[in-house]
């Protein structure tokens, strides 16, 4: 290091650079002082000019300079902290400008949006104005970064609605169209192959998830096998919600268990608490090809996630709150998936509960999943 600096000094490069840096930043006095100090340190000069501010026993101390006075000035703790913070802030800003020589308005706007996003609150505590503001920021940021628009909804739960789901085991043939539809609809990470739905291939004569195959790839259905799909069951008593230490996940009044991706700290307690393997964690920054991003998004649903947060099936909240069926229901070609309003006595789901022999998984846990299985 020392040799390199000396070489540079010999070529008169470092000095010029340092002076330039001092002049261009607008912090001339600090810049010059810094360059002088660095000069003496790197140069290894016994008697630097101007002298080192530290007094030495052998060398008689020279008359105090401006730098000397500055260094010896007494400051109280508060103003010291203040100036350190200001220095850090300025330094950070300088570094950013230095690292992005092409920094323009768009980049600074993105930085500002990120900064403001960082300090927003939990979704449940936001006022309508705050919700509108964060939606505006998210949409604007996407527009700046991708030159494309998204629509993020914060539509609230409708009164008189409680979502329920039924799955016809006799009808499922393992086609996996639901999984495909779900991944596309919910902007799931393509890199890690994340999927909310699992289709389990069981041998006929038993229902044992330990022995089921859920990564099959052969023509389906296979003789002597049947298929069961699992996903988040939107439990009425969700254990995942109880264990969250920061209340980043909760049950909405229409029964959907949601996650505030910007409040989640990624501790994965909920993943451990869920008896149904319904929750997924983003180990990496999710990768979704730009042309495949679903632009119809919901704040608590399929908006783009980030590394280190949990996500899960929300019965496609962005669709279901518009009266549509979840993407899996829509994609299923066999009609094995039925979705509806449990509080509507005329709904299909209520007809099934009344007329079919239904069961739920691990009913003895008391989690009360709103997801029933039945057979023809």
């Amino acid at each position, binding site marked *: 290091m020392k040799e390199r600096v000396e070489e540079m000094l010999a070529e008169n490069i470092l000095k010029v650079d340092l002076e330039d840096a001092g002049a261009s930043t607008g912090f001339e006095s600090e810049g010059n002082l810094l360059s002088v100090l660095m000069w003496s340190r790197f140069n290894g000069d016994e008697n630097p000019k101007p002298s080192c501010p530290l007094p030495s026993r052998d060398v008689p101390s020279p008359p105090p300079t401006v730098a000397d006075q500055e260094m010896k000035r007494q400051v109280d703790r508060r103003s010291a902290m203040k100036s350190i913070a200001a220095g850090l802030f300025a330094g950070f800003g300088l570094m950013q400008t230095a690292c992005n020589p092409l920094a323009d308005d768009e980049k600074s706007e993105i930085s500002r949006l990120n900064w403001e996003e960082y300090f927003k609150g939990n979704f449940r505590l936001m006022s309508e104005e705050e919700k509108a503001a964060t939606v505006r920021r998210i949409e604007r940021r996407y527009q700046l970064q991708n030159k494309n628009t998204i629509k993020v909804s914060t539509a609230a739960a409708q009164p008189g609605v409680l979502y329920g789901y039924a799955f016809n085991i006799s009808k499922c043939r393992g086609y996996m169209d639901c999984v495909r539809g779900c991944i596309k609809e919910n902007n799931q990470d393509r890199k*890690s192959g994340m999927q909310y739905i699992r289709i389990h291939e069981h041998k006929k004569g038993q229902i044992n998830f330990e022995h089921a195959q859920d990564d099959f790839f052969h023509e389906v259905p296979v003789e002597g096998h049947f298929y069961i799909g699992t996903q988040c069951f939107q439990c*009425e008593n969700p254990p995942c919600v109880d264990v969250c230490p920061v209340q980043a996940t909760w049950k909405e009044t229409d029964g959907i268990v949601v996650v505030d991706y910007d409040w989640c700290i990624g501790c994965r307690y909920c993943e451990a608490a869920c008896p149904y393997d319904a929750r997924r964690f983003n180990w990496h920054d999710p990768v979704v090809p730009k042309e495949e991003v679903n632009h119809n998004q919901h704040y608590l649903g399929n908006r783009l996630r980030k590394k280190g947060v949990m996500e899960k099936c929300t019965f496609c909240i962005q669709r279901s709150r*518009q009266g549509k069926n979840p993407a899996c229901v829509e994609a299923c070609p066999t*009609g094995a998936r039925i979705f509806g309003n449990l509080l*509507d006595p*005329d709904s*299909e789901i209520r007809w099934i509960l009344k007329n079919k022999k239904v069961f739920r998984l691990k009913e003895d846990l008391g989690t009360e999943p709103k997801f029933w299985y039945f057979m*023809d």
Partner: protein
Amino acid sequence: MKIPSHKIILSIKMLILLLASLIWAGCTGEDEHSQSTHHSLLERLEHESAPSPNTNLTIETNMENTQRIPVKDAADVPQFYVLERSSEITKYPCTTCHNQPLARMKAGPKAENPRAHWDIVIQHANADVMNCLTCHNEGKIDQLQLLTGREVSFEHSYQVCAQCHSRQFQDWTGGAHGKRIAGWAPPRVVNNCVDCHNPHQPAWEIRWPAHVSKPVK
């Protein structure tokens, strides 16, 4: 032995504090569970259900211009709908070609009467039970027919299917069989039988899955 009065006051104060904290804890506990005053989900459904439609949501906006037709013969369930079908059939009305009795068309030279429907192979029940005219009406070829000879329009073709598949028909009217169109919100519009099943070959195919799952470790 005499207990100093300030000690008595202190102990009373402590007791009040203890009671207050107990009451407070009890109240907050109740608050937490106030949402679920029912013992089970089904109990909640029983108590909170309101006559349909109990929501402002509707699928009308998702339906665009598709025309829906009320389903007949479904007395036990609320009114539901199927989609209009005649306009969706590519070679309808059938009388465009079938302008003379079937026997005469079959007898004529092939050059003048190129074979239509060559791609249709019936794989539905067996030949002793079904042929074309089990469902199609020879006299009025633009219509279907029931076993009794009653005419049925293509919109209501489910009536033809229901003659044999009565169990599936019952599930279809209730909602356990078939597939809903446009969304869960009212009104209820469903696929007709033939929207999913090819009536000439109603069985489902064996095919490759649409997606491969990564193994779960």
